[in-house]
């Protein structure tokens, strides 16, 4: 059942993400080719020739590219939030919530595709930047990416865990919003602000506390100190993720009240 939920989740969201990805890569390619082609086409040559038209068109294309990159980042976040909200709590919720599927599968069926899209969005934007600056890259230099150390693995893990926690924070805030008799979105926003505030408060105590001075050890400490601090931060993030999941699950299972 999880597989099926995910299948329809990808179908529902893919038709919105794919065009955005195509636009990012196409614009990067177009801009990139203009710059690589040499001769009179690039921005550099336009400046050299003091050709205002060429500068303007080249700059405009660059601006459009950066706007599309920015739009992709915003789109990813907005779609993840919107999709969760509309498919569970609006009209489509009448369909989703009457499927013979457990709440866990519903939640994971939304969460896993959301994680995938976030990672794909990041990869697509990275590829587009590489395309754009391809002519200046010394490709051998990029080989150091293949040289993994423990700390690199931990950093990557920490990023992925934060991503999951970030998405689940949206889910639990939206679910808490459903507890309101009216103005559900307002309560959801309030809940989200509350979560962010509480987390920063606790992190401050945890990491900037003079007793632990975790942040000092992270910056000035030994390799082992850095690893330990990273592990603690991953643990802290995981604990939040579990809390958000439990909240969203409890509300969907026991407190559902569709309008």
């Amino acid at each position: 059942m999880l597989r099926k939920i995910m299948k329809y989740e990808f179908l529902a969201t893919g038709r919105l993400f794919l065009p955005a990805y195509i636009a990012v890569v196409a614009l990067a390619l177009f801009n990139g080719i203009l710059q690589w082609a040499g001769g009179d086409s690039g921005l550099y040559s336009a400046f050299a020739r003091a050709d205002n038209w060429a500068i303007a068109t080249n700059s405009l294309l660059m601006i459009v590219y950066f706007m599309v990159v920015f739009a992709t980042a915003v789109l990813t976040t907005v779609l993840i939030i919107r999709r969760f909200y509309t498919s569970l709590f609006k009209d489509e919720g009448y369909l989703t919530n009457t499927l013979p599927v457990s709440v866990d599968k519903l939640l994971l069926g939304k969460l896993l595709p959301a994680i995938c899209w976030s990672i794909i969005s990041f990869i697509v934007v990275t590829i587009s930047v590489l395309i754009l600056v391809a002519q200046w890259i010394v490709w051998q230099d990029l080989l150091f990416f293949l040289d993994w150390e423990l700390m690199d693995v931990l950093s990557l893990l920490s990023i992925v865990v934060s991503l999951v926690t970030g998405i689940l924070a949206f889910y639990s805030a939206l679910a808490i919003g459903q507890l309101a008799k009216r103005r559900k979105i307002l309560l959801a926003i309030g809940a989200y602000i509350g979560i962010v505030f509480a987390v920063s408060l606790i992190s401050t105590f945890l990491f900037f506390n003079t007793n632990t001075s975790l942040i000092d050890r992270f910056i000035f400490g030994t390799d082992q100190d850095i690893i330990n601090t990273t592990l603690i931060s991953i643990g802290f993030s995981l604990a939040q993720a579990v809390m958000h999941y439990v909240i969203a699950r409890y509300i969907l299972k026991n407190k559902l009240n569709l309008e």
Partner: protein
Amino acid sequence: MSYTLECQTLTKHYPQSLALNQINLQLGKGKIVGLLGPNGSGKTTLIKLANGLLTPTQGQVLINGQPPGIETKKVVAYLPERTYLPDWMTAGKAMAYFQDFYENFNMEKAEDMLVRLGIAKQDRIKTMSKGTREKIQLILVMSREADLYLLDEPIGGVDPAARDYILDTIITNYREDATVLISTHLIHDIEHVLDEVVFLNQGRIALHESVKQIQTERETTVDALFREVFRC
């Protein structure tokens, strides 16, 4: 023995109103039951509670003896009073969706009804009229071989010709031991298909009788009785 649908002191409060007030109701197998009442009498609330879309304030609702959950959702076919299909789907995709999630979905039956109603599989939900969307949803719901059909205003939004077809679809497609609960205020149109009626008034059951009883003992029609009970 457990009833197909049972409500035990079922109560639901909304912020401004009491939608259902201590309802006790038992529906057995193999009946077509009309859930009748004026607007705001609690019909939709009752059906949503039975689907687990609302949480009761007090009391409980049981389907085959179980509270709403995965097991009851397998055997309940629910037609809500709104469009719940995502608008990016086509008719064919929506059917595939039902086939994926409901083991008791009969694809052949659904395809057959789709053809008879002149809807193409590749038609998008987005471009359909409200009436066509309602027809698609009814096809999907009635193509399931369920124990309990909960139909919320199935004929409210369609023209009288389609109304006859839909009622015909309902009575010819449900299994003999299945129960059908139809909420509506268009009593005259559905009177002839009902076995029992439940009158809801301001969150309370005003009457629960068989149609035969109403016709022979009270010597009146459901429509006339309704007008009498709910006289303004």
